[in-house]
């Protein structure tokens, strides 16, 4: 079983999966961005900072509110909605329909893309498919588990 999604271990596993498949990522190309995943959950939010460099995820770390504010953008949603997204990825092998991170952020009612710098927010668009590949790794770690 893969770790629960509201753990750093889960994002570490996604990072390992991405970093083991750089050949696949080569089609999408290099990316340089810092994103923060924020999961609202009972007992306190989880904030995980993801640093992408070139074809790899170079850093995964739980961060505090202030550090989270320094990322290019934050993807913010309730734990249940994040679970919904990852369930869709595991069920279909990749995100489908309105469960892609682009669709979710566009509608913004379940998971929204936030940030106070338009240049940072635009990185969500510039590197969107890299981020999707990263999240889609959940399907492969679920199979491997």
């Amino acid at each position, binding site marked *: 079983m893969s770790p629960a999604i509201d753990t750093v271990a889960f994002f570490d596993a996604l990072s390992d999966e991405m970093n083991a498949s750089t050949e696949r990522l080569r089609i999408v190309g290099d990316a340089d961005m810092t994103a923060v995943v924020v999961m609202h959950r009972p007992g306190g939010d989880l*904030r995980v900072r993801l640093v992408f460099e070139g074809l790899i995820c170079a850093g995964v770390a739980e961060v505090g509110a202030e550090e989270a504010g320094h990322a290019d953008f*934050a993807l913010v949603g309730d734990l249940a909605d994040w679970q919904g997204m990852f369930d869709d990825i595991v069920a279909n092998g990749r995100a489908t329909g309105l469960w892609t991170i682009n669709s979710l952020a566009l509608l913004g009612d379940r998971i929204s893309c936030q940030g106070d710098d338009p240049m940072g927010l635009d990185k969500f668009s510039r590197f969107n*498919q890299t981020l999707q590949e990263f999240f889609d790794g959940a399907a492969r770690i679920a199979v491997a588990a």
Partner: protein
Amino acid sequence: MTVTDDADRPAYDELPSESPLGAPLDWAWLRGAKSEWGIHPKPSPRGLTMLDIAVGTYGDIPEHPPRRSMAPRGADVDDDVVDMGYILNSKTDVWAENTRELYEEAVARQWSATRDIPWGELQELPDDVEHAVCQLCTLLTEVEMIAADLPAKWMWRMNHDFIEAKMFLCTQIMDEARHAEVFRKRALANGGGLLLSRGGPTSLLRTIIEAKTYTQASALLHLLGEGFVLDIFRMGELIAPTDVEKRIFRMCMQDEARHVAYGTMHLRYAVENDPDVAEEIHAALDHGEQVLIDFGTAPDVSTALALLLAGGAEHVEDKGFPLALELTKKQFTSYLARCERAGISRLERTTVPLDLLGIDPEQVRGAAPAAQGAQS
């Protein structure tokens, strides 16, 4: 500066001064030029990037290049090099602080409209939806190439010392060729074809191509026009009837965001270093916003978008137009936020009906509700 005329180096005195055919020979490049030698840039983990080689004097971009020739910046240049007639000879005319990064990013993230779109998965669509896709693709095929023609119009006028900016614009031209390609292919690929092309969009394209200065052109193209197209591509998730079109929009979105990123940072650099240029940009945007509103409300554009957002003709009024209004709100909100970031606030000056669109200027100003959300 390290120079090549090092006393420890061989003098190569034995080399001939005439070719076998009697032509004079010059070995100055071997005996030592004044240019910087031996800087050994170190490749980064992804390879040797333009950032890696921006070291020593090679990384210095002059504010006002001393020449107007094609001599490479950093070379030991003769006095008699040819003047190429450049008119953009100030760094503020073309530069953006993210130019090198964006060039590398563009090269690394190229894709193929032939190979990377799952054309084989196209499905037969209802008649109204296929027509709307084809109408939108007709429009996009038409407008994409303005974003290639515009840089092309100005590039040969840019001083060669700003080569990184010119290289980035070359990638934009390639990107736009691919965008025109992918929308043209989509229009034809599913049993439809190209539909109506009318006068409305042309006036926007003319306004962009006829801008008096490159910085005005960049404001109209990169910030205003491409910013709007970027939001249409983002909305591709709702516009696209199948995964094929979604993929097209997502791939184009990544490219488009790069072009907008260059424009935003170019305008910022220009305004920061030459405050007088702000009024020039405002004047262009005063006119450009009006033309863009006319473009966005042109009958063919608004109807095709509304029909796609509604998923068909049946719900065009109760679903399509309300969603289209949301799109317009998003487009203007992100445009105004980028203007703030570029240092050319439009909030007091724009004639865009902010009230009517429900846009809160305070939110645009960056009251940072977003960061609060991230930190909450």
